[in-house]
Each structure stands twice: as C-alpha cells, then as structure tokens.
C-alpha cells in the first residue's frame, strides 16, 4: 500500500462496512512483495535447524547415536530432550502426551527425536539423516479397525449426547436400518509450509516469528519449553500462506525447537521443514468410521438415531477432544431427531496426531447426517431433498438439538426452497434421469444438501478477544488485534469496521502484525470466529476513543455530547463540521488519551460437557448447495458439471471476501470428498506425503458452472459485528452436495433402488467400485 501520509486528506469512504474491498495485501501478493517468514531478511548470524525423526511407527528407542550428525559439515549443535531447560511437553490440552523430542516411546513414524543446527538449511537437513537409532519395534496401530481390534484405547474422554429414549423409539419405529460409513481425512496443504524464526534477546527474551493461527499458545509453549515466563516471549505473525486449521497447534513444535536452538546457541535460528517432512510430521483432518442405526417411517421421517463416531486421532490428544465433540454437534446437520444417542470414540493410533481442519469435525458429523438422509430416501423411494425437508428443525417440539440447545434462528427451509427454485432442481433432475436412460456409459447425478453450522468455540472461554487501537495526532490509526491473517481477509474486514467507526478512509488505518506483545491472551484464529470476535473487540476500542473525543469536542465547542457525530470524512459538532484529523490534533493538545484497548466476550453461550447439555453456539450459519456431476461407469472418473450455492453470511462485512471464502471453502471440501486420499503403508509410513501423490483440486476441477450467491436481506438475529455471520468454515460443508450427486449418478445404474453407500473420499476407484456393487445388487 502507498505511504499513508501521501493520502492523509482523503475523505472517509461512506458505507465501508459491507463494501467489496480488495484484500489489504492484494497489491503486495501479486507483486511478490508480501513478506512471509522465509522472506524476512536473515538476521546477522542466522543458523538453520532441522528435525531428526523416528523411522518406526511404534516401539522403544533403544539408543540414539548422533556422532555422525554432529560431525557433519557445517553442524553447530545437536539437541535432544536432554537439552530442554523447561518442559519436554507441547501438549496443547496439557495432558502431557506430546513431547518435543521422544526419549523412550516412539508413537508414530516421523516423531521428532532431535534437532540439528547448521550454517545452512541444506547442511542441517543432510546432517539430520545421519543419526543411528536402534529401536525395539512393536506392531503399530495404523487405522480405526486396528485400534478397535486392539481394544480401542482413547486419547481423550469421549462425549455422549442423549435426548429421549432411543431404545424405545427405535423399537417403536416402523422401519429400521443399520450401516457404516468411512470418511477420509485431509491434508491441509497450506501453500506456505510450517516455519519459525526465533531470535534471542537480552535476559531471557525470545522473539519468535512463526506461521501460526495461535500466537498466544505458541508463546505459552515456547515459555514452558524454555522454562521462562510468558512475558519473556514475544510471538509475531504478519500473515500466513494458508492455515486451514493446520497452524492452530501444529506450529508449536517448530516454534519451540527454533527457540530452543536459539536459546542454546544465542543466535537466531530458523526452522523450515521440507514439504514432504511437513506432511509426515503434522496432523491432518480426522478420518472417521460412523456406525449408525436409524428408525424411520414410510413417509421418510426419522424417529430415532443411534450413532458412534470413531475417529483416528493419532499418537496424542491434541485437539481431538473438541474435534470429535464438534462432529457430534453436527451429526444432526439441519435435522431434528426425536430420539437420539450419539457417542464419540477418539481413538489412539500410531499415526500423526490429527488436528484442527476447517470445520473441526463438523464436516464429518454432517457427512454422517446426510448418509442417514440418503439411507432413508432409498429405503422409502422418496427424493432425498423431500426427506431432507421433512426432517428439518421447526414446528412444535421440533427445535431441540441432541445437545439440548434450542434452534432459534432456523432458516434452512427457506434457503433450501429458494436454492431449489433458483437452480431449477426438480426439472433438471427429471432431465438428468431421461438423459441417463439414453447414455449407457456416462451417467449424471444431482443433489441438493443444506448446511447448518454452529458458531462459537465449544470451549466457552475461548470466545473472547482483545484489540489495541492507536490514533496518532495526524489522524492516522494503528490497528492491532488478536486475530491472525491466513488469507481469509480478517485484517481487511476489521480495518473496514475501524475506518467506518471513525469515518476515515481505509488508507488511514494501518493494519499491524498480530503480536502477543500488543494484545495478550488471545484465542486461536479458528472456529470461523475471527471477525466476530476481533471485529467487536476493535469496535469496542474505537468506541472508547470516540467517547473520549466526543466528551472533549462537546466541552471544547460548548455543545451537548449528543450533537457530536462521526460521519464519513468529517466529524459533526453541533452545526460545525471539522476533519477527524483536526479533532484529534485538538484533543491531543487538551491531553485526551488517543489510544485504547478493546475487548469482547460472546454472550449467551454455555456448555456442560459432562451432562451433554447447554447452549454452546451463539448462532448458526446456514447455506445450501446443489451439485450436478457426470461419472464414467467404465473408469469411475467424474466431472462436477454445475454447482449452485446460496449461503448465509448475515449482513456481509465484505461480500467479495465472503464470496472468496465460499468458493474456496467449497472447492476445498470437494477435494476432501473426492480426490484427496491419505494412505499409510503397513509399517505406518505416510505414502501420500507430497503433491505428486496427494491430489488437491486444480483449476479444471472446479465446477464447470459455478453460481455462488450470498443470501440477501438476512441480518444475523444476534447482535454480532454489524449483524454479519462467520463464514470461514461453513461453506466447506456445501461440498457434501458433490458426494451425494456422485452417489445419485452411481445409483442410476441400479435404477435408483439400491443405496450406493458411497464412502469418502469418492475417488474414481471408489466410484467404480460402487457402480459395480450397485449393478450386482440390482441384478442388472
């Protein structure tokens, strides 16, 4: 951006909030001038660290000979657990189950054993391969089936949700069926890999630049590992090259190791794993196996649901507790289950520790819900959309979730109906059925699925945020808050809120890097909460300053405070209009404080996990998508032909940014459910550790026709920041429509009589298998 001083006299832009402003870094992004941590000019004396890792997935480390590592060219130091001055523990849930470096037990292939520091990254990376480790290898538990077979050890306490008498309701249901669904995991594939750069200061000070969504947690972890107070550690992040949940806890390791090495050597140290190592080391979206039983009737109404959501959590708890909780919180999607029992199984496995990923278990919960709908639709012969509508929340006694929160803002029916009308669902469906009859090889399918996603951290205390706003005497503003920028446009949204609050131009607001030194004790930028929380906190700070300025202006110009108003480009003081800059300059001379902190805590929410009851979500975000696909019944290949989306952003803070979140979230969700397949070999080694084998969508995978609309005239019923709604995660789940459109196409080979039970990811191989199975079961 241009130097703000060049444009200081710019008038405030009217209606900044709600306007489609470009991303604040867009001009720098396209010029290659946006600075990521690896682009930061190297501090004098910079060294590079690399991690040495375990070559087995389960067993004991008998010996570790690092002499060759230490003797390798350029190597300055080799550090193990013994070199940690504080705690050898970075478990984010304080369960002490995640050492920085393994000392005895090896729990997954790729577990860090030591760090080597050298003059160049290449030297460190080469040296790291020279360790001689001896192991007593034990059989590894790789997947959910193996974990079950070994007794089903859990990494954290499971959750049970219960409402009504399920056994009785199931027994009384006219029809019942049982099934199981496998839902795959997902690699984040942020384009900028994990990276940290630690610079030691005087005393015990440590400054860490790190690509993280959670600077405060990194601060706490670094402090604990170094054995110093949090006040000695400053963590800063200007921007990430993508996060998606993969940098909520997963950056801790890299930050702590860089800081540990920097402390030991009293020199700056950078740690950036190679992409393949990043994929091996870091956790991913949890894969699940859902076992379900449904009671329903011939009209397609669900009477009872009993489900177990088993998840592969990996070698430690990390965020698996809240992730599997959120899966259960979304096992209803938009549907009312008169009687319900659901249980999570956060299973221990000898694989990387699965973690947050956009949706945080919600998508898996919802995929399970839509499978139930599909089962009922095939069992009754009803159109799945009809089954969806018949089971929506709404009506007397039909508004209570399995966690006993009343759904108060339900607009699912309107969204579904409106989208079906706009995309001509019924007519297209009929046309597709006709066309399929004449197309022996290529079969089309269509599906329309809704989304209802709960907004708030289910850990209630995380729903708080702080901000720091400085107004300088020239009328420019420095903005800081606890939210991090990972591409989602949080910074520009909050800047819009601040600029509008003061009636100044965006160019007068300087967005500054998130740092624990300015705003403390922040929550992760996660759970879609970024603009809800930080927008409100920043507005709170602005209002504090405005109150002071108003009092000053009233006194100075002898007007009543009610006669002072901050308008676009000017401040009205009685009949007088003055520039914001002039007001600020005058206020400074009168010794008015022009800096303020802001704070926000989400109201209304509470949650009793033991009881499985509460009001964990402030509100719900809604949306619906209709997808049309074509599949090849000879190879299982497919193409997403058309997608129509209607999504609820409340009163959007920035419709361009929100549209970007919807389109991007959809395609990311589509990747998860289609071509993104993780594989581990029998030894527990991740086979898909590079983009050559792990296939995220490319440009040609996006829908051939892609109509995305924000729901109009739909302000949030709750008083959120300018009545907007969170948009980071909910659109990802719109992609469930693609899975069901594929399923619809597969079902056509059995005249839509056999439920395809298509598991995820629906790779071409799975689609072809489903085609062959449906054909066989239909005896066609």
């Amino acid at each position, binding site marked *: 951006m241009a130097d703000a001083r060049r444009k200081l006299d710019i008038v405030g832009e009217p209606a900044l909030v709600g306007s489609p402003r470009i991303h604040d870094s867009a001009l720098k992004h396209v*010029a290659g*001038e946006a600075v990521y941590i690896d682009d930061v000019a190297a501090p004098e004396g910079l060294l590079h660290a690399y991690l040495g890792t375990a070559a087995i997935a389960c067993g004991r480390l008998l010996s570790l000979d690092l002499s060759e590592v230490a003797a390798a060219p350029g190597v300055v130091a080799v550090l193990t657990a013994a070199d940690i001055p504080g705690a050898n523990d970075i478990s984010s849930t304080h369960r002490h189950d995640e050492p920085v470096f393994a000392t005895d037990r090896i729990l997954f292939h790729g577990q860090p054993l030591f760090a080597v520091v050298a003059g160049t990254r290449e030297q460190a990376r080469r040296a790291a391969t020279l360790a001689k480790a001896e192991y007593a290898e034990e059989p590894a538990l790789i997947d959910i089936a193996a974990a079950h077979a070994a007794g089903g050890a859990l990494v954290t306490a499971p959750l049970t949700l219960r409402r009504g008498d399920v056994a009785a309701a199931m027994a009384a249901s006219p029809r019942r069926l049982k099934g199981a669904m496998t839902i795959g995991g997902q690699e984040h594939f942020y384009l900028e890999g994990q990276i940290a750069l630690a610079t030691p200061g005087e005393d015990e000070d440590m400054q860490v630049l790190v690509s993280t969504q959670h600077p405060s947690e990194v601060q706490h972890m670094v402090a604990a590992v170094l054995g110093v107070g949090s006040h000695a550690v400053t963590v800063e992040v200007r*921007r990430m090259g993508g996060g998606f949940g993969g940098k909520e806890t997963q950056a801790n390791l890299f930050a702590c190791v860089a800081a540990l090495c920097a402390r030991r050597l009293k020199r700056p140290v950078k740690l950036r794993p190679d992409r393949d190592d990043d994929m091996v080391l870091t956790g991913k979206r949890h894969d699940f196996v859902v076992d379900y039983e449904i009671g329903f009737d011939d009209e397609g109404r669900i009477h009872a649901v009993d489900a177990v959501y088993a998840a592969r959590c990996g070698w430690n708890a990390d965020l698996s507790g809240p992730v599997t909780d959120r899966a259960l919180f979304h096992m209803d999607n938009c549907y009312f289950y008169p009687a319900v029992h659901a249980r999570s199984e956060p299973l221990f496995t000898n694989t990387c520790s699965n973690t947050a990923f956009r949706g945080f278990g919600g998508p898996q919960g919802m995929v399970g819900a839509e499978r139930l709908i599909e089962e009922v639709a095939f069992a009754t012969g009803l159109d799945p959309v009809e089954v969806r509508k018949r089971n929506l929340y709404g009506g007397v006694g039909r508004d209570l979730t399995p966690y006993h929160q009343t759904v108060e803002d339900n607009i699912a029916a309107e969204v579904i109906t409106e989208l079906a009308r706009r995309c001509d669902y019924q007519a297209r469906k009929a046309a597709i059925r006709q066309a399929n009859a004449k197309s022996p090889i290529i079969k089309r399918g269509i599906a329309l699925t809704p989304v209802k996603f709960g907004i708030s951290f289910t850990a209630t205390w995380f729903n708080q945020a702080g901000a720091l706003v400085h107004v300088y005497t020239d009328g420019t503003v420095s903005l800081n808050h606890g939210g991090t920028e990972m591409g*989602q446009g949080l910074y520009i949204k909050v800047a819009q809120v601040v600029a509008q609050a003061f009636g100044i131009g965006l160019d007068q607001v300087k967005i500054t890097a998130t740092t624990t030194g300015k705003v403390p004790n922040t929550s992760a930028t996660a759970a879609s909460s970024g603009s809800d929380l930080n927008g409100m906190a920043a507005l709170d700070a602005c209002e504090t300053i405005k109150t002071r300025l108003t009092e000053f202006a009233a006194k100075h110009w002898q007007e009543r405070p009610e006669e002072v108003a901050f308008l676009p480009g000017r401040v009205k003081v009685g009949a007088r209009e003055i520039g914001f800059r002039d007001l600020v300059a005058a206020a400074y001379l009168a010794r008015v404080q022009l800096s303020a902190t802001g704070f926000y805590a989400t109201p209304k929410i509470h949650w009793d996990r033991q009881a499985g009851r509460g009001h964990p979500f402030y509100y719900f975000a809604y949306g619906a998508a209709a997808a049309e696909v074509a599949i090849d019944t000879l190879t299982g290949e*497919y193409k997403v032909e058309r997608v129509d989306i209607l999504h609820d952003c409340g009163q959007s803070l920035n419709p361009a940014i929100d549209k*970007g979140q919807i389109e991007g979230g959809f*395609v990311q969700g589509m990747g998860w459910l289609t071509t993104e397949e993780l594989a581990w070999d029998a030894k527990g080694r991740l086979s898909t550790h590079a983009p050559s084998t792990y296939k995220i969508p490319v440009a040609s995978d996006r829908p051939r026709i892609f109509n995305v609309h924000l729901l109009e005239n739909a302000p949030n019923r709750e008083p959120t920041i300018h009545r907007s709604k969170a948009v980071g995660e909910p659109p990802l789940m719109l992609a469930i429509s693609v899975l069901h459109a594929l399923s619809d196409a597969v079902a056509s080979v059995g005249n839509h009589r056999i439920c395809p039970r298509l598991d995820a990811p629906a790779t071409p191989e799975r689609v072809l298998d489903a085609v062959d199975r449906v054909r066989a079961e239909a005896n066609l």
Partner: protein
Amino acid sequence: MPLSARHSDVATSGSLRSTLRFLLGDELIEIARCDPTLTVLDWLRLEKRMTGTKEGCAEGDCGACTVLVGRLDRGELRYEAINACIRFLPTLDGCQLLTVEHLKDEAGDLHPVQRAMVECHGSQCGFCTPGFVMSLVALRLNEAAPSVARLEDALAGNLCRCTGYEPIIAAGRRMGEIAPRDADRLLRDREVVAGRLAALSDAETLALDGERGRFYAPATVEALAVLVADHPQATLVAGATDVGLWVTKQMKRLDTVIHPGRIEALRVITDAGDHLRFGAMASHVDVREALAPLSPQLDEMMRRFGGEQVRNAGTIGGNIANGSPIGDLPPALIALGATLVLARNGRAGLERRSIPLESFFLDYRKQDRRPGEFVEAVMVPKLAPEMPFHVSKVSKRFDEDISAVCGAFRLTLAGDGLIAEARLAYGGLAGIPKRAKAAEAALTGQVFDEAAVSAAIATLSQDFTPLDDMRASAAYRLKVAGNLLRRFLIETRAPGTGTRVAGLLAEAAHG
C-alpha cells in the same frame, strides 16, 4: 578439476567455456563457479535475495516457484513457464530468466496480469499468487485471447488452496481487457532480448565447475557424444522434472551433469511423410503439437501430461530414458510402433542403432542403454486409415496427476475387417511400460467386437500383476485396463456414445 583433465576435454569435445551466462531480466549474469544442481529457486531466494518466487513443494507440483525462461527457438525468442524449484541454474545458459519482480513497469505500476488478479480478488493468502501471475503472463505472451479451457491447462501446474480458482480464471479472462497484449513491455522488448541472447549463444561447450561437481552443456550432438563417452558416471539431465527431485527430495549429489538442452538439433521435430522424427530434447509442448494431428486422443493425453511447467521443461527423450513404469508417453508410442534411435561416439563419428521402443525397457528402471549411448531421437509411424487407435489415461485427479493406468491401443484391420495386428500397451500395470501379449493374441484374427474384446480382457491377468499403491489398487488397475478396451470398442464402433466426462474429448462432445 586438474589441468590435465581440462586438456583432455578440449581434445575430445571442442572448445570449452567455463562461465555460465544468462540474462536476469535485463541484467547479464556471469557465473564462474556453481554447483551443477543448484536450483534456480535457491539461487534467486538465497543468493539474489529475490524472494517473490516461493517454494511450495520443491518438487515441481505446486507451481508457487513459477518463473519464465526466454530462450531462442530457431532464432525466435520463446517464453516458457517453468518450475524454478527443480530447474538447475546452469541449464539457463544463453536464456533469459524473468521473475515476478520483473513485471512492474518503469513507473512502478502493476503489469496487466497483476492488475487483473487484484481486481478479480484472485489472491487470498497470496503465497501461490506470484506463481499464478507468472503462469498467466506466460500464457499472455504466447497466446491471444486464451479460452477458459486453455487457462485451465496453463494453470494445471499451479495449486491454490484458498480461492477455489474461480477468481483466478476470471483474472485470466480479464487480463486481455485491462491492456492490449501487443502493448506488453515484454513483447515490445522481444527483438532486443533476442539479439542479446543471440550474442550469448556459441558453439562452445559450457563446462562449469562447482564445489561438488561439474556441469557440461555441449552445443552439438557430436560434443555430447564425446562427453557421454568420456564421463560414464555422469548423469544426463534433460528437463530435470524427475532428476530435480533426486536433488531436492533424496538430497542426491550429482558430481557430473551433462545437459543437452543447448543442442538445437536435438529439439527438432520433422515430418518424414509416413512417420514423425522427434529429437530427444523436444519438449512435451512441442511433442503434443506434432502428435495432435495423428489423433485427438494423443492430443488429449499430452494435454494432461503434468502441468504446463513440466510440459515446457520435460522432453520426450527424458521421459523415455528415465524408464518410469508409469510414464505416459511410452505406452502411447509403443502402441504406435515407435522406434528409438540411440547414438554414441564411434571411431568414425556418431554410431547409431534403432530398436523398437518396447525392447528398450528391460526391467523396473533398467533400460537397454549401452556404454556411451544416449537417446537421440524417436521415430513414430503415423496412423493409417485402417488403424483404429486409442489412448486413455486414468488418474485419481483428472489433470496434473500421474496415471493409475494408461492404455494405448492400435489395431490394424485387414481388408476382410479382421484384426491383422493388435498392439496393446499399458503403463501402470507392471514395472515397465508393457504390451499385453495375450490380449493381443486374443484379438488377432478376430472381428473387433464385444466377444473379441471380452476374450481379450479375460487374458489381462495373465499378462499383468499390477502395482498396488496409493494411486490405485491392483484390482482397480486390472479392471480399468479391461474397461479401456471396452471404451476403445465403443468409441470405434459407436462413436456417438458419450464416453468421456472431462477434458478435450468431453468438451468436443459437449459441442
């Protein structure tokens, strides 16, 4: 390198030049010492401190490191997008390197492609953005008004995890409207740059020393033959789209590298009437253009070959000599009846031998290449009217993915309509690209119909024990291998039937 070694080089491979020369934007870069495998990306980021070009994967799959290389092609300046992360710096000899830092004009204003990306909200986290910008610039320089399908092709080698691509494609459509293409500074400067590159080109062999090895880039086939004979341990590196990963992923050190990229004769593709002759260094982009008239299916297969950056860098000779079990070109070329020309230095100049392509592949990563030999050319017979032909690539992701199965089939029908010869070649089903001998036998002498195809499919398990890995299971591979024969039959006998969901062949059916 001891002095005596230099003398022997001079005696056998012509005169030597020890300084690497290329243009970085307008700046002439001369480098006297450099490791043979130093990547362009590391040189830019670590030595030049030009950090606009990003490292996303260090294996040529994500495109965050996309830069443009301008080179002289028969006297004309040609710009190609390539992956800087797996391109070795010395291979830029005689070329121009352009990065995202070279795009703004003298006044500091954004290039039209950059402006289009901003206007269309084409960046979110911004990390992949410089790579997308460079791929779009390359497309703009080479083609006027590209279609959406062409945009998708040109961007298949660029991964974005944030936007879902919609705004980036929109930017690609918008870039032409923002400023006319002819006014582009990079096109305006073409003649000047071509002149400067012409002044850099010479007939000498580049012999560049580094701490850990030596890089040779001869200018003639004869000099190449001498170098290959003199350095039996050397690694012959063409586009480095695979060898680059040996360095960035396996951290292999290559002491001696011989790069034939400067030899224009090896890039030549000639139409010899009944067959095409491809010089070993013909890039996949050029190979595609030459093969496309033979069959739209070949065109489509080559379109899906890696990403655009890989198609620009990779070569037909490299793809064959590398001997991957899943390379896409060998099955197609084997089905077409291609022969390989291998050359080496002999007493009276070059000695050549020609072999059927399939006999080159002996076993997994083991080829019939004799001491001193290198792949010089590939001869590909054209299809006659009585030769139904088919090639299908099946992969987990449709574009920019490696085949699970690649099947290529050519039948020769006799006057009586019976199959006189069947050539069925598969990739992904064995350790090498391989013909399905039993299935060929089952088809030969038969009418090409459902019964014959079913009989052929039934034999596939005799010919192959397919790979079973993260790309696909063995069972799926075998099933698809058979179904591709069905697809061939349907496309031949009932050409109106829809058989493709995506790509050029589906677009053609869409009309």
